[in-house]
Structure formats: C-alpha cells, structure tokens
C-alpha cells in the first residue's frame, strides 16, 4: 500500500524485498517507496526487520530477493553517495578512547562527494562549521568526541550526515539512551531540516512521540509491511493499534 500522492519519481523504491538470517525470516516481500519531502517513521516491534530493511536500502546488506532503487539508481551500482546522509544505530556507543575530534568526525561526511585522493582542505572548513552550527555545536569543534555527552555525540553524527547537504537523511533509532529534553530538541532540529532545508528524512524509532509531532508518513513493519501511509491513517488503523499494543504508547493527536 503506497499512499504517496507525489507525482515525482520516488527517492527510494523498495521492491518485493525478502531477507533471512539463517533460517529466520526477517523481511518478507516488502514493497514501498519514499517520496521527496517525506518525513517517514519506520516503526515495528523488536525483531520486525526495521534495521535490516534500512541496511538493505543503503546496500550494507544484500536482499535475498527483490531490489532497491535509491535516487532512481539500483543500489548495487549506486554512486551518488554524496546525496545520502546516514546516522547508524550505534552512533552513541562510540569508543570514548578513540582519539578523534568533533571536526574530524564531521569532515568524514565530506568524503562521499570527493574524488581520489580524498583530502580535507581549508575550503572545506566552511561546510564543517555550517553543519556544526545547525546542530548548535560549533564551540565543540576541537573537542575529542569521547568527552561529549550522548546527546551531543548524536548531534555530531547528524552534523556528519548533513555536512554534504544530502537529499535524504536516514537515522536508525537516533535517540536511544538520550534524555527526554535532549530528544525533544533533537526532533525539533530534524523537523527544521525537513521543512527549512527540504531534506527528506527516514527515521527508525521506538518513540511514537515523534510520530505524533513531526512525521507525515509512517511505515509499520512486522517482517511484512503492515502499514504504510499518512499519519492520520496510521492513527485510525486498527491493525497497527493491535500490533503495537504493549510495545508502543500511541498518542494520536497533533499538538
């Protein structure tokens, strides 16, 4: 079910994708698409295949069956990495011992648009500063990343993901281990990136608070795609309510 009314070609097309870890089926014939401008939340119970799906979309894992197109290009031959931003699930579990500065981490995000040899030059500092400003961390530029709090580290990873001004930003449970106040600021920043910077956002989350406040599309996975549609339809879906009972606290009114 794809309720996208956007006539432009989708940024992401997932076509009949299946995946198993050994004998355990994780994804079963999942088909959906993501349009430009979407702020999509991918939700589902633990083990429902959310992270696996994201890794398949990004080409980190190969699907058993089916195919994925990213920005109109088959993921197997995808080259436009400069248009993609990605914040992985374990971003906040970084090794505090690792001797890398905030600046060095954000600079990593610039490599996707560089050709061999990929050097960071003086003229790149402007882009690094801009990205850090967007996440309110400019003063932390030369600090070792291990010295920052979990929420600050998460924002550094967002800065790394947006330093290229990507068309689409993927985030995998970005607020795990982050306190409620920081989460709120974080989601507000994502909303601003989506509306002001026109960045399409795809977020895997366990926090339906964000579904309530920010997103305009929801995809619900449970090995198969149980639901994909607008926020309002999501709130009225009895299938979703039944599936998520107990794991998620559903509040379906907009502030």
């Amino acid at each position, binding site marked *: 079910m794809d309720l996208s009314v956007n006539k432009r070609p989708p940024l992401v097309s997932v076509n009949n994708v299946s995946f198993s870890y050994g004998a355990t089926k994780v994804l079963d014939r999942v088909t959906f698409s993501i349009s430009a401008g979407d702020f999509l939340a991918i939700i589902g119970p633990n083990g429902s295949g959310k992270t696996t799906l994201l890794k398949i979309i990004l080409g980190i894992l190969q699907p058993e069956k089916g195919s994925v197109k990213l920005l109109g290009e088959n993921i197997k031959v995808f080259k436009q990495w400069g248009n993609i931003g*990605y914040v992985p699930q374990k971003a906040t579990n970084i090794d505090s011992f690792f*001797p*890398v500065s905030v600046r060095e981490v954000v600079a990593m995000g610039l490599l996707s648009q560089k050709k061999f040899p990929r050097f960071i030059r003086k003229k790149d500092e402007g882009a690094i500063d801009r990205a850090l400003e967007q996440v309110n961390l400019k003063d932390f530029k030369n600090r070792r990343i291990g010295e920052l709090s979990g929420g600050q580290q998460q924002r550094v990873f967002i800065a790394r993901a947006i330093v290229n001004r990507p068309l689409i930003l993927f985030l995998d449970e970005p607020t795990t281990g982050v306190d409620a106040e920081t989460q709120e600021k974080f989601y507000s920043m994502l909303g601003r990136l989506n509306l002001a910077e026109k960045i399409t956002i795809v977020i895997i989350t366990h926090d339906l608070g964000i579904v309530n406040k920010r997103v305009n599309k929801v995809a619900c996975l449970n090995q198969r795609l149980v639901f994909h549609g607008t926020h309002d339809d999501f709130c009225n879906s009895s299938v979703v309510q039944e599936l998520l009972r107990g794991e998620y606290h559903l509040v379906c009114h907009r502030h």
Partner: protein
Amino acid sequence: MENVLSYGFMQRALLAGLFIALACAILGVFLVLRRDAMIGHGLAHITFGGVALGLFLEIKPLLMALTVVVLCSLIILKLREKAGMYEDTAIGIFSSAGMAVGIILATLSGKLNVDLFSYLFGSILAIEKFEVGIAITLALTVIIIVATFYQEFLYQTFDTESARTSGIRVGLLDGILAVLTSVTIVIGMKVVGILLVAALIVIPSAAGLQLANSFKQAMVLSSIVSMSSVITGLFVAYYWDLPASGTIILLSFLVFLIFGGIRLIKKTTSIE
C-alpha cells in the same frame, strides 16, 4: 667511550630499525583502534612457517615468508568477510598451522639451528645493506599509502558501516591494510624477531593512544615512542651486552606504563 656510530653494523641497525619502527607505529594505531591488535601476533607465527619453508626449499626465507604471510592474511580477511568466521578464530587457526608447519619443516631439514634462532629472536646487529634498503622502501610505502588514503582509513576505523554508505571501498582498504601489515611484520622480524615483532606494532601505538587527543597526534606520539625505543634499545643493548630485541620491546613497554600512569593521573585530577 668508543664511538659506536662509526661501526657500519650499528649504522645499518639504526637506519633499518628507525624506518621499521615508523611503519609499525603508523599501522599499529589503526590496528589497535580496529581491535585487530592480535593480527600481528598471528602473522608473526605464520612468518615462522614461511621462514622454515624457505630454509627447507632453499629459497630466500624472507621472500618465502613474505609470500606466505601476505597470502594467509588475505585468506583470513576473506574468511571473516565471506564465511562469517570470527577474525580471532581465523587468526588462531592459521597462526597455529603456520607454527606447526615451521616446526616440522625445520626438523625435517635439520635446520632448527642458529639460522632459525636468529629469525625467532631477531638479529638487527647483523642486518645487511639490502635489508636496510627494503626497510626504508617499506616505511616510505606505508607512509605514502596511509597519507593517500588517510581520511578513508580514519573513517573506516572509526565507523565502518557509515564509511560504506559514503562510498568508501572498505573491502579494498581492509586488503591494503592486511598486505601492509604482513610486509611490515616480515621485515620487522629482522629487528626484534618473530617472537616480539607483534609487540613493536601494538605497544608503541597503545602508548601513544594513552595521551593523544586527535588521530594525527596518536600517530606522531606512537612513532616517537617506537623510534626512540629502537634507538635507546640499540644503545642499551650494545653497552650492557643485552639482546637488542628484548631491550627495545621492554623500553617501549616502560613508556607505555609511564604514559598510562600520566593518563590515569590526568583522569583522576579532572574528576576531582
């Protein structure tokens, strides 16, 4: 006091030792942070098998060891990538097999003697001119390759998955690092021997990482620790009549303890 620097053997030892120490330190920082420190140990054991094979077949042991170790390191990499085997398991299997082959071949050829012992414990004071040339070439190759791919190596070491989604060819980088490490281990065995060459990769890097605030700082500090251990180690060994290999490694271990202590004091002070 006689001037030891006027001796050709000492000049060659210093030159080769410094360049090998530099290559070991640079690669070591990546390996330690990737939690691949044990690969050096594993490859050193495989080197023993390669050297014994060379002695058995009467082919230059250094060349034979180089071929065997590069091949095995790439097989270990593929086993991890394609067959999903844990890297330490793959290293454990190949290093033991390498040692076993070495022991059998050395016994069969009747060459479990001085030759093999010099490979096991190092013979930097007996290093030859062409080996100095190899050491310098190796170190320059490591520096040029790491400088060229520096950003990619850093990104991959810090966050492999994200590096992949930035179009970084992590498989290729893994391969390059495996080959460079293999070559460094084999050449490094001339300095401190098969039994201690892994330490030359791990200890100076671990020491540098105690105090570094940035990645570049870690590389510079590790290189300083590594090279100063070789210089001091060679002189101490010469004047006190000690084995150079053990002295070099013990000195770098001492620096590691000092740096670790400083880090601990800094940490305690900042908490208070």
